[in-house]
């Protein structure tokens, strides 16, 4: 009787191991999105998760842990069991929050798995404004400081930081008016409530093409693939590089071999033509980088953004 039950238990255990053997270390993956369903972070996550699931042969459940400007989700991610079965998407705002919030999630609590791509900021002005070029805009802002009304995120959000970097790099001041997200910001730009906005290119591309707004410059090292006719700030003689980015991370302490499997699979998915076709059509810039390079890119952003936050008086949790 006892022998029988032991045998049964063994068989069950065997079956359980066997069921996991043909898959990514041990079963399904939970993918944490730290923003509500429907946003850019959510859409890109679901897109990657779908293909990563095929690649690894396990189910991936995408879960939204929104709230506290993305902090709730990062906390969920950082406190998860570091076995590689809980991963998620990281954005620029989480790097910023390290220094601007109480009880933040620090970068060293996370393991970087791969880079997804940059989402460079841009300076866009409303159609009714007199600014035809970046020079016009900069001149006007210097002539009458804090007069130009710019639409952006609340302090700490990516497009607020883009506006701050614009101010500090060029030594000017604008009136940074916060909106809760890109959509309301673009609406305000179209309606003429704000004169300019520092949201990324895809958000304003259609309106630029239609002549309702003018994108004056892209805040990136190279031009945006969706708008090859719009010069960068650099090309126009202004040293401004700013914007959001996306990377895939997990909690710190994931075993090296497991992290390597995830990292390789992610880079493979992000490099596939099928994925790129979909992501590019939706306006997302893809730049697949492995763990080490991705970490370097994020550290670079971290170095760039800290002095800007300090200058803007946003740092409550100094280094």
């Amino acid at each position, binding site marked *: 009787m006892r022998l029988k039950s032991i045998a049964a238990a063994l068989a069950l255990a065997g079956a359980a191991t066997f069921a996991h053997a043909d898959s990514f270390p041990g079963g399904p993956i939970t993918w944490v999105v730290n923003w509500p369903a429907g946003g850019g972070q959510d859409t890109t996550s*679901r897109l990657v998760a779908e293909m990563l699931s095929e690649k690894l042969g396990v189910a991936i459940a995408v879960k939204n842990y929104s*709230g506290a400007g993305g902090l709730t989700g990062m906390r969920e991610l950082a406190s998860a069991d570091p076995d590689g079965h809980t991963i998620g998407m990281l954005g620029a705002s989480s790097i910023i929050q390290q220094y601007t919030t109480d009880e933040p999630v620090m970068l060293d609590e996370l393991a970087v798995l791969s880079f997804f791509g940059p989402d460079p900021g841009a300076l866009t002005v409303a159609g009714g404004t007199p600014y035809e070029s970046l020079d016009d805009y900069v001149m006007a802002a210097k002539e009458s400081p804090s007069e130009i009304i710019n639409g952006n995120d609340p302090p700490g959000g990516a497009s607020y930081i883009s506006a701050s970097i614009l101010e500090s790099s060029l030594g000017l001041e604008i009136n940074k008016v916060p909106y809760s997200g890109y959509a309301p910001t673009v609406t305000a730009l179209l309606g003429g409530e704000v004169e300019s906005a520092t949201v990324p290119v895809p958000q304003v591309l259609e309106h630029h093409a239609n002549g309702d707004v003018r994108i004056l410059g892209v805040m990136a090292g190279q031009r945006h693939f969706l708008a090859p006719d719009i010069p960068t700030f650099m090309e126009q003689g202004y040293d401004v590089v700013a914007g959001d980015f996306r990377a895939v991370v997990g909690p710190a302490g994931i075993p090296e071999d497991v992290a390597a499997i995830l990292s390789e699979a992610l880079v493979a998915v992000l490099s596939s033509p099928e994925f790129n076709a979909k992501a590019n059509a*939706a306006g997302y810039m893809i730049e697949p980088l492995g763990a080490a390079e991705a970490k370097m890119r994020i550290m670079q952003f971290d170095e760039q953004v800290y002095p800007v936050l300090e200058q803007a008086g946003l740092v409550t949790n100094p280094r």
Partner: protein
Amino acid sequence: MSALLDSLGLLLMDPWALFLCLSGVVVGLIFGALPGVSSTMSLAVMLPLTFGMSTGNAMMFMLGIFFSSVYAGSVSAILLNIPGTPGAMVTVLDGNAMARKGRAGEAMTYALIASLFGGVLGWIILVTTAPVIAAYALKFASPEYAAVVFFGLALVAYASSGDTLRGLLAGALGLLLGVVGRDAITDVPRFTFGTAELQGGLDIIPLAIGVFGIAEALTAVETIPKTAAALPARMGRLFPGRRALLAETPTAVRGSAIGAFVGAIPAAGSAVAVALAYALEKRISRTPEAFGTGVPRGIVAPESANNACVGGALIPMMTLGIPGDSITAVLIGVLLLHGLRPGPGLYESQPEFVATVYAALLFAIVFTGLVAGTFGLRGFNRVLLLPRRILLTGILLLCLMGAFSVRNSIYDVWVAIAAGGAGYAMSRMGVPVLPLAFGVVLGPILEENLRRTLMIHKDWTVFLERPISLTLILISFAVLLGPLIWQAARSFVQRGSEGGKPR
């Protein structure tokens, strides 16, 4: 117009497209009826399924989910007194009250017919006047948002049932609760007491589930041995009668018009629409005291409004490429993934695609009517035939699950439980809970837009210089002070005539 007829014809001939729309409707009915699962969440979860579909089919599927889930929010509101979505928050009041009188079937029919009516009217407004309305909606900037919410709060203050003082108190409490969390303008945490959880603020869904659903279940538990009156025991007849239905037409028209227009204003949302529609009906009713006791008007107004919002929300999306709310944001995501960028360019260059989207919404409305009318009404109502104890336990479980699923957060479950206790206490003390819920929803919108207006214009007079906000503010004061002035004037006239009498 001919493009629209073509699209309708093409889709009608395409059994696969029709099947997808039907599947979307069934999915939406189930998800929408579950408390806490919002339309946005239903769409986001189903998004990966659309990757393999053609763009037109994807829209058939997604709009099927969209429309039916908005309607289905009324199901748990009426039968279980749990508002599953912010748009169903008002339906709870008269819907559940009517169900409790043993007329659940009628309440469900009113909700379905009002929803379909609102859907169709919203659709007609979308198809015929989208560019005009969109241009008008763009005139809504921060001062106008602030004014429209102020107007909404004025109506709610007037429309809260019972004691006005208690209603105002509950509303003030709601405004206060809405302040918790990160401030939308400066990103500074407020009333978080140093905790990480409160930084995310108090979400309206766990709160509403608590003050309506859990509080109601607690009341029902209290009365189980005696009367079991808190929950509807039977569904009663389904059809309220043609004359009774027709009598609600003006309400449905007003509700739909408010819904379609508020839906078209980016970021206003169905919660604002139902608040306005309900409060307006109560304001103009000859028997305002009957609201909340189970009058059809109290179901028809919000249900026509929130479903008309669907067509309204598509207006800025199709003509301007702006998502009016989180639901249309997902829809834009679907289009982007298929390589289509909605906006003025697409609207002008691809009328046949625009027509396909319009046709898809019409199919979604029709299928929702068919599925809900044939199987839904009877099926959903069967829930009520469960033994009382099992039903109550189930309701409590649904409440807790619903609170959890909003943000996958156990903290929201505690919020719901605490709100349940508070809601129970409030109803024992005769304090209405609806103003509290509206305070939580409207307060943050008012604050954000008011402060932003002052950041941009640096002067309060801006509210009086802009025609839309001036009009709204004048009407608000008329609503608030009208009854007082009327009373004062009448007593003055009376006193005057008394004084004139010879002694």
